[in-house]
């Protein structure tokens, strides 16, 4: 390609010497910014704050459950803790942190200078922030200002009729509804922005078949956000109509149906799991090849499997409802559809393993987290298949086995890859490397803590311990297991402390990274670290899936092998 711009042209090497801006100016610049990188970082920072808060809520629960008949917190407080923990982790940690990485990385990976709608991007972020603040304001204002300490206590899926005005007086449930409603608007806005960016902002040569897998996975994830978050928003509107205007959607006294809420919630709730896990797949699909020194194995199969997961995930929601009594027809359908989704997921695991196979593997911290992800995600998938069988599910639904299963997905798969993403992209975002020593401490402590907590959590579940109980009797035989589970939480907290220290220390004192510390292949590594506001001085053009490989190895460029 004679007319293509060489990728090094993306670097503007003129040095900028300006005066140091005032703190107020910096603050003003961040609040008013429409730059996708700054918004992405704000998303990530905001999510990290909530990660610590929701983590502390989990610690409160684990301390309470560590020994039988503990009375550290009251049943009411325990209810608030698990409600806030779940709601915060899903809506104000998981979604924002993934949108943050998406915001930061997608334009860079596509060779674009910003998202398609920069102002919508800022709006979506700030509306999500407002939602999170509203949710936490309920601690103060949930009962009117004098009745402090009344956060939502209806569980993260807020089953009807518990949410009716009679059973949940005060305003705490309304704060829950409004917080989620606003976060939903923000999510739809950002998803719309990401899809549009992917469709219309790709640099010349970046065909759909050449996009990095992470971008593909975000594309599928955003379509799921449209289809899944819409119903949740609708259900929240209905709940508000019930609570404020005296409607009867979920009012069982007037013929309303509690099961309808369950359907509406899980039509959102199950695709939501895939909304969270697909970007995690994206991180793994970028990091594993780079540290195996091989191109990803089976790119077309990976894309197909991702799209297939997206489709199938829309038809599995009622496996959360086997104990409701939907009848044999529905039970069979949802059992089968849930089992089928394991097929494309299995294809992905095989492809990651095949990428590792014969590779020159470098066990950096990011890679360690990805390898752990592969194992843990496999186990999470296997307990998922167990739970998808409706007769098995009847026994264990609503027990700690289910809690252990979905934490295996959310922590063992999603949080592990998010940590991998931090170690991998932190040099790009800050210009400095994270400490590998602290990183290894973080990894091993977290791995031990994770397995202590969530492996052993399966056992009290099988012994019959229901979820959401605030304490249990001595003679149940759950005490030892719960103590082990709670001990694991301590290790996890220590690991998170290592991580936070590592983030802060590396930001100020880390080794200078340079534009491409990992010898990677996607476009974000072709520009400076951190990238300038305009990302690329000249818009790059690409000829293959690994543009930087082509640049570094012109004698053996990928474009020669493209179909």
């Amino acid at each position, binding site marked *: 390609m004679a*007319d293509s711009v060489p990728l090094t042209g993306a670097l503007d090497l003129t040095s900028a010497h300006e005066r140091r801006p005032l703190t107020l100016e910096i603050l003003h610049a961040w609040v008013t910014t429409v730059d996708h990188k700054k918004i992405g970082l704000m998303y990530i920072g905001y999510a990290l704050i909530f990660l610590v808060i929701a983590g502390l809520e989990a610690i409160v629960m684990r301390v309470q459950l560590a020994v039988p008949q503990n009375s550290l917190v009251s049943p009411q407080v325990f209810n608030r803790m698990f409600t806030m923990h779940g709601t915060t982790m899903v809506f104000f940690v998981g979604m924002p942190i993934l949108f943050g990485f998406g915001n930061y990385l997608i334009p860079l990976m596509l060779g674009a200078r910003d998202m*398609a*709608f920069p102002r919508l991007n800022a709006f979506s972020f700030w509306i999500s922030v407002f939602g999170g603040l509203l949710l936490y304001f309920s601690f103060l204002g949930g009962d009117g200002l004098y009745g402090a300490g009344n956060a939502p206590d209806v569980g993260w899926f807020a089953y009807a009729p518990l949410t009716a005005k009679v059973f949940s007086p005060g305003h705490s449930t309304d704060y829950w509804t409004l917080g989620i409603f606003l976060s939903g608007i923000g999510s*739809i806005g950002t*998803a*719309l*922005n990401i*899809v*549009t960016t992917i*469709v*219309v*902002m*790709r640099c*010349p*040569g970046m065909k759909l078949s050449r996009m990095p897998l992470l971008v593909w996975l975000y594309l599928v994830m*955003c*379509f799921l*956000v*449209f*289809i*899944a*978050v*819409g*119903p949740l*928003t*609708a*259900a929240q*509107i*209905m709940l508000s*109509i*019930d609570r404020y*205007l*005296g*409607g*009867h*959607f979920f009012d069982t006294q*007037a*013929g*309303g*149906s509690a099961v*309808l809420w369950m359907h*509406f919630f899980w*039509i959102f709730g199950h695709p939501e799991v895939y909304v969270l896990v697909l970007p995690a797949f994206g991180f793994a699909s970028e990091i594993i090849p780079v540290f195996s020194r091989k191109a990803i194995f089976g790119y077309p199969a990976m894309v197909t499997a991702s799209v297939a997961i997206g489709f199938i995930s829309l038809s599995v929601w009622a496996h959360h409802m086997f104990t409701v009594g939907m009848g044999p027809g529905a039970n069979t359908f949802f059992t089968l559809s849930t089992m089928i989704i394991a097929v494309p997921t299995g294809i992905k695991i095989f492809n990651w393993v095949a990428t590792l196979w014969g590779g020159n593997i470098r066990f950096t911290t990011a890679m360690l987290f990805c390898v752990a992800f592969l194992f843990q995600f496999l186990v999470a998938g296997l307990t998922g298949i167990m739970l998808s069988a409706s007769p098995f599910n009847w026994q264990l639904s609503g027990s700690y086995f289910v809690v252990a299963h979905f934490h295996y997905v959310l922590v063992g798969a999603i949080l592990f890859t998010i940590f991998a993403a931090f170690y991998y992209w932190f040099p790009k975002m800050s210009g400095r490397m994270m400490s590998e020593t602290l990183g290894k401490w973080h990894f091993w402590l977290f791995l031990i803590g994770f397995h202590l907590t969530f492996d052993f959590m399966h056992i009290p579940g099988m012994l019959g311990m229901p979820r959401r109980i605030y304490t249990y009797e001595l003679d149940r035989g759950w005490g030892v297991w719960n103590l082990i589970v709670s001990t694991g939480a301590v290790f996890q907290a220590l690991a998170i402390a290592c991580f936070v220290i590592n983030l802060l220390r590396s930001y100020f004192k880390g080794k200078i990274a340079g534009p491409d510390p990992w010898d990677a292949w996607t476009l974000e590594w072709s520009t400076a670290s951190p990238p300038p506001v305009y990302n690329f001085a000249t818009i790059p053009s690409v000829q293959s899936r690994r543009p930087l490989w082509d640049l570094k190895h012109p004698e053996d460029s990928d474009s*020669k092998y493209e*179909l």
Partner: protein
Amino acid sequence: MSTASITPREQPWILPSRGVVGISCLIVAESAVFIIFVVAYIFYLGKSISGPNPRDVLDVPIVGTICLLSSSLAAYLAVGALRRNKVRICSLWLAATVLLGSIFLAGTAREWYQLIYKDGLTIRTNLFGTTFYSLVGLHATHVIVGLVMLALALTFTLFGRVSEAHAQRLDVLSLYWHFVDAVWVVVFTVVYVLGR
């Protein structure tokens, strides 16, 4: 392909318009919201434990429906006129769109007034009231939003601020308006035809 490397230049790099893609995404998300309200309406048909029932109180809003559906055509013609840089004709069609949409909205207002004050059906009366006002109200909210934006566009054309260059933007707005009309076809069928 070996032939590809011989080809001197690739096809020119043209990507779709950002507005059209954006509004399409919004339409997908909004459709999901409407589907849930429609499902709730259908699910609760005939489950009210007290009257009034749809058959007793609902009249088919034929005039309003004709107006709303033809407003879509007017919006389409407005965009077409702007593409040919005929701003005057464009504002004429935009005015027609706003007028027809307003007639529809007035029809809904009249219907609601009668339902509330003559038939005593409010959102708290029974399940029919709850689902009916929510579904039709959600649609009417979208009509209002559309009308405000169309009226803005009309004002801009009247003050000579609009040219051929804005055709794409007006097209985005018209897509939203077509969506609102298409939703009405579903709502009309479910509420006034099948559900009565």
